[in-house]
């Protein structure tokens, strides 16, 4: 199957040839068709560039470093990546003039692990076609429903509109407004947990978080988590950067990490995607987003760079912390 749309490839080639940019941030193929890796291409290596329905990584974080290098880089950004890009612009982490944002359309991205769970093995390629996905495998062609093999983050997609771009590769596909994909609330998972008793919640999270191996993948992939020096790398922080020795460390690590990105997390869902232990980390971030929406008004990080962030602003009428206790005993 074709790994990149000709229009996208030609557009990148044009950008390099006419001198707008000198390199492109996109994906390259790994050992298998589904393990694609973000990579930077120059004019000579453009032939290896791919962008297809497996390319799920959020590219914005790489632009922090790339935009501070000499020259200008073209970046293929999906709609959800542009939220993170906006958020990083707001925090003055990216040099805007050194980035040329090429908005690429997205139909959701395929999770090869989910496909394997459905018995689709030996995958050689895949393509989303409407509500189904056509797989090419070493055992022949297979199809399945799209919602069964999409990444968790794509199932609760915020919408297909790019928040910021210099150029779109497919302007006809761009919707007028960002409409959430499935019409369901992305906070359903959080509400479900909120309705459990404290004892059940505790057992749920201990079960999930105790699998954490502290590989730091969630931290390293997160566009909001991009401090040059991280509190968890400090040996005096009480949280070592090696594997956890007891349950408390996972708790502390994940609570603090979620807190540090509260109000800045765009809900791109990368943390859950990269977790090798399949811990639903997005449920922590979404809890903060839900609380912020309920207590301080609707706020979507990365939507608008001019808005005040909820944790760096206040009103005199804010709820007292006791509201947590008053919400009803469960």
């Amino acid at each position, binding site marked *: 199957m074709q790994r990149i749309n000709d229009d996208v490839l030609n557009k990148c080639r044009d950008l390099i040839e006419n001198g707008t940019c000198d390199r492109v941030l996109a994906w390259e193929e790994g050992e298998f068709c589904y393990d694609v890796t973000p990579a930077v291409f120059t004019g000579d290596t453009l032939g290896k560039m791919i962008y297809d329905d497996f390319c799920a990584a959020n590219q914005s974080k790489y632009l922090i470093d790339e935009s501070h290098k000499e020259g200008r880089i073209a970046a293929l950004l999906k709609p959800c990546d542009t939220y993170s890009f906006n958020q990083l612009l707001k925090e003055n982490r990216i040099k805007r003039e050194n980035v040329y944002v090429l908005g690429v359309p997205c139909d959701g991205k395929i999770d090869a692990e989910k496909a394997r769970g459905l018995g689709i093995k030996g995958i050689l390629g895949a393509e989303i076609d409407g509500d189904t996905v056509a797989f090419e495998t070493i055992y022949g062609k297979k199809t399945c429903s799209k919602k069964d093999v999409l990444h968790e983050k794509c199932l609760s997609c915020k919408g297909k509109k790019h928040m910021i771009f210099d150029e779109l590769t497919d302007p006809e596909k761009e919707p007028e407004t960002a409409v959430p994909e499935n019409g369901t609330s992305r906070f359903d998972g959080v509400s479900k947990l909120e309705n459990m008793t404290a004892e059940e919640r505790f057992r749920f999270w201990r079960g999930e978080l105790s699998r954490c191996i502290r590989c730091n993948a969630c931290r390293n992939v997160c566009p909001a988590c991009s401090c040059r020096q991280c509190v968890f790398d400090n040996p005096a922080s009480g949280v070592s950067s090696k594997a956890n020795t007891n349950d408390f460390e996972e708790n502390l690590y994940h609570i603090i990490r979620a807190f540090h990105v509260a109000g800045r997390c765009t809900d791109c869902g990368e943390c859950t995607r990269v977790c090798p232990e399949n811990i639903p980390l997005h449920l922590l971030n979404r809890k903060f987003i839900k609380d912020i929406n309920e207590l*301080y008004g609707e706020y979507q990080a990365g939507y608008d760079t001019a808005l005040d962030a909820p944790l760096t602003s206040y009103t*005199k009428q804010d709820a007292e912390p006791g509201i947590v206790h008053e919400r009803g005993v469960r």
Partner: protein
Amino acid sequence: MQVNDTNKEFRPLIVAFCCNWCSYAGADLAGSSRLSYPADVKIIRVPCSCRVNPMFILRAFQRGADGVIIAGCHPGDCHYTSGNYFARRRMTLLFSMLDYLGIERERTRVEWISAAEGAKFSATMNEFAETISRLGENRRLEDLRCKE
């Protein structure tokens, strides 16, 4: 360590982060007014309630605290104009997250106590210590290596 449980009454360990300008002075007033509050409350003086990093609270629990209370100036009275407003948002979100993770919600609290409210300081600490005694030892957010 061998402990004879039958003779040992549970005494909670409570950490109170008190703002230098209001609540710490409130504690002082409680003392000079001869109002008592439990000796289980260990006061840590901070320049402002917004100096309290969420990490401080979790570290206190890790090292064996059974309850953590943050006391600051009343909203609008902050020595630094707006510190307690920021602290209010942060602590609301943090407490909500702890509750979400199944940590008993009564173990954390924020109170606004001015320098003139010695009586409120004493009453709050007595009441908080009683609540924590009823809850018993903190087992959900502790690190055994930090305890004896």
